[in-house]
């Protein structure tokens, strides 16, 4: 009969299986384990530690585990491992036996840092400067820095999410479009810039040919459906009075008429208030119609084009 010995070491982080005679114990067992160490890692300084000798808790674990009459041991030249755990600018330090399982190191660190056990559930140890996140059953001695008996861990959460998931779908979609190329290119080229969003209203400044900025107030509920809106005076918090509207020439027809909807909607095919009853515009002005894939940048492009043509006229006021 044979029994299985699982050997953990810095050179065998995931464990080596060594089969030895069932009745082998103590020194002969250790000698058999050391004889199985790959020659490139063999050294007269290597010691064998039984995981079960670490502490009563580990002993209990070793007794409970049905390892088919086997044992878990650790092979190392370190009698003790100096462990540092860093967390949010604080650090705690302690020596452990090399065969101590990482799960126990984590529990000690969480306690020493004042973290409640239930809050520590989602935290894990990561070897500093690496992306290695040992499992709870791996030995701390597996992770010593080369040529030392030291290991530094960072206590981290594997994945942290903060944010407001209650944002409605139409708002989320608008935010997505504001982060995509059609909008960003206009922003980078100085054509327009997002001033603010007070959902469902987006305020966007559009730069005219004479470098004046006009604020558009666009109502975006139902986005990526069409928005509706017109020029806004951010100083007074009201619609821009007619005498302060820009004018465009005949090329754009009545698009900037101030008498339409009391100056609360631009008379263009991509405005949802204005398109109602003007479906013929879809054929007459296909370049100015709404495209839900491009989204708000289409509306802005239409307005920017009007404000940057040679026939643009600034308001007298």
């Amino acid at each position, binding site marked *: 009969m044979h029994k299985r010995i699982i050997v953990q070491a810095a050179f065998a982080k995931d464990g080596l299986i060594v089969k030895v005679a069932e009745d082998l114990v103590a020194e002969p067992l250790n000698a058999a384990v050391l004889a199985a160490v790959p020659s490139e890692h063999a050294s007269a300084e290597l010691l064998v530690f039984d995981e079960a000798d670490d502490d009563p808790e580990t002993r209990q674990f070793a007794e409970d585990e049905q390892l088919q009459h086997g044992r878990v041991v650790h092979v190392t030249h370190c009698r003790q491992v100096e462990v540092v755990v860093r967390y949010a600018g604080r650090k705690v330090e302690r020596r452990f036996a090399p065969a101590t399982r990482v799960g126990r190191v984590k529990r000690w660190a969480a306690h020493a840092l*004042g973290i409640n056990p239930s*809050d520590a559930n989602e935290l894990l140890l990561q070897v500093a*400067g690496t992306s290695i996140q040992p499992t709870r059953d791996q030995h701390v001695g597996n992770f010593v820095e080369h040529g030392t008996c030291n290991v530094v861990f960072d206590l981290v959460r594997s994945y942290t*999410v*903060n944010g407001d998931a209650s944002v409605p779908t139409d708002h989320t979609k608008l935010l997505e479009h504001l*982060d995509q190329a059609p909008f960003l290119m206009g922003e980078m080229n100085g054509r327009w810039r997002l001033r603010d969003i007070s959902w469902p209203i987006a305020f966007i400044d559009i730069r005219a040919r004479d470098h004046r900025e006009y604020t558009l107030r666009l109502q975006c509920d139902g986005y990526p459906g069409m928005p509706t809106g017109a020029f806004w005076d951010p100083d007074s918090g009201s619609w821009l009075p007619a005498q302060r509207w820009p004018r465009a020439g005949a090329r754009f027809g009545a698009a900037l008429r101030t008498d339409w909807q009391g100056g609360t909607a631009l008379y263009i095919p991509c405005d949802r208030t204005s398109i109602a009853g003007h479906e013929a515009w879809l054929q007459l002005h296909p370049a100015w119609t709404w495209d839900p894939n491009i989204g708000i940048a289409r509306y802005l492009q239409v307005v920017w084009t009007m404000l940057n043509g040679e026939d643009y006229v600034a308001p007298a006021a």
Partner: protein
Amino acid sequence: MSRPLLEMPRAIYDALITDLARSGRGVKESGAFLLGHTGPAGRVVSDYLMYDLVAPDSSQKYAYVVLTGEEMARAWQHCYATGLEVVGDVHTHPMGPMQSDTDRAHPIVAVPGHVALIVPHFALRDPEPVDLGVHVFEGTNDWRSLFYQAAQDAIRLT
């Protein structure tokens, strides 16, 4: 008036708000670790570390705050190098300063007493402490939230 939970120089607060707004550009959430020291006088902020510096990939990828274990470890390394502690954290919301379910489930630092600030409207409206949500982690998934005057009292700008 009770003792403030966080103390921060006005210049750092203003720079922080500017950086949060710049990072989020009004279209995505942004955030930062608040760094400093905790002493008898409470938590004193002397610097901050933007999430987009330690987590450039996650910041580009998501419209909300995401930190992987590796990204969080970068922040801990920064603390180790500078000798500063994380005394709080801050992130923006598109709308109000209340915590979301994920905010409550994922404290940035899971030590009771940790302070998490939420800045509304992507930090675009020159928010003052009175506009913020101040959320104090009390352990075992419990939080205490302060708003309006209580939020203003909790943050002392020096």
